[in-house]
């Protein structure tokens, strides 16, 4: 179990960070040139479609990070794994960032297409609730820093938040909303033309790399903080 010693883990994290740094700008330039220049305009929205290349991946990332956080927190509550606690703590701000990004870009897209910045329909409201859950989650870390009750409160928040996730996903199918239904389905064909799918997935890759970079840096900081408290093993 030497792999999990502090020295080793920091070396591996540093290697990862260096690797991502070396390819990040290349992927970013390719992704952006596809999204902004090479990809065609939409037949109806014109150039506004390019907002989708940031909006859709950010929303996906926001949702999936909360799912990971919820699972991690519940495991931490049951099995008391200290490492999971650091993991969740480093992930939460990234999820908040991308949820906010999805809401802001969605709003920017909504003005020219729908004619309004915001509508209280089921999809938009449930997304706002997700953002609030992220905020609660992060505030709880700050307030109950070393309290015994921290895991309990965190798991309560993540249970409630996790129930919200399928509501966000299926809100556009269950209820009448202003937001359009999902274009990309796990099973079946997507209703986005393939020339627009390429920049979409490239931007997803860019944002995922960015997530990984920020996560590793934050995780490293958390590990160093613990090391300073003189605990020998995770």
């Amino acid at each position, binding site marked *: 179990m030497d792999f999990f010693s502090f020295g080793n883990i920091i070396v591996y994290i540093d290697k990862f960070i260096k690797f991502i740094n070396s390819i990040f700008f290349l992927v970013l330039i390719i992704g952006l040139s596809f999204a902004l220049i090479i990809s065609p305009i939409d037949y109806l*929205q014109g150039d506004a479609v390019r907002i989708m290349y940031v909006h859709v991946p950010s929303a996906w990332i926001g949702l999936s990070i909360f799912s990971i956080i919820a699972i991690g927190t519940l495991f931490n509550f049951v099995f008391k794994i200290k490492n999971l606690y650091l993991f969740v703590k480093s992930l939460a701000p990234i999820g908040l960032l991308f949820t906010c990004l999805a809401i802001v870009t969605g709003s920017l897209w909504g003005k020219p297409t729908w004619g309004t910045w915001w509508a209280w329909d089921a999809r938009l409201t449930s997304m706002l609730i997700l953002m609030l859950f992220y905020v609660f989650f992060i505030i709880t870390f700050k307030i109950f820093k070393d309290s015994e009750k921290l895991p309990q409160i965190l798991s309560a928040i993540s249970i409630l938040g996790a129930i919200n996730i399928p509501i966000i996903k299926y809100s556009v199918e269950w209820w009448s909303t*202003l937001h359009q239904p999902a274009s990309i389905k796990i099973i079946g064909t997507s209703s986005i033309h393939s020339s627009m799918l390429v920049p979409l997935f490239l931007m997803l890759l860019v944002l995922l790399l960015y997530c990984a970079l920020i996560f590793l840096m934050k995780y490293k900081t958390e590990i160093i903080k613990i090391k300073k408290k003189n605990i020998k093993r995770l």
Partner: protein
Amino acid sequence: MLTKKIKTRLFFLSSVIFITLLFLAFIYFSLKENILYFKTPSEISIVDEIQNNSKIRVGGMVKKDSIQQNNKEIKFILTDYKKELIVVYNGAVPNLFSEERGAVVEGKLNDKSYLIADRILAKHDENYMPPEMKKIFENAK
């Protein structure tokens, strides 16, 4: 492998999940009507009485060749292919508002088939494609 402590925690966790689901179900059933962002013209036509002062939102397709514009007033028919609703509106419409596209109108009902709107939102569907593809689709029809 599972110690007694872990079993207690798991039991606690599942009871919390169960209770929250129960609560959410209650909330859902009491709010059912309000979650819908708009009603369809068919749903409007079966409403018993019209509340003159309350605003409602109705969504549907703008019927083909139904947009009449004079001065600033625009008049069109909103349809869900079963029932129709005449909508009158004063002001600018969103760019994407056009015939045979989805729209959501917000306003007051005059009677069951006549609505005075004070806001119009265009609804976008889930299809994204370049302009050339659209032409190919239309020629295929």
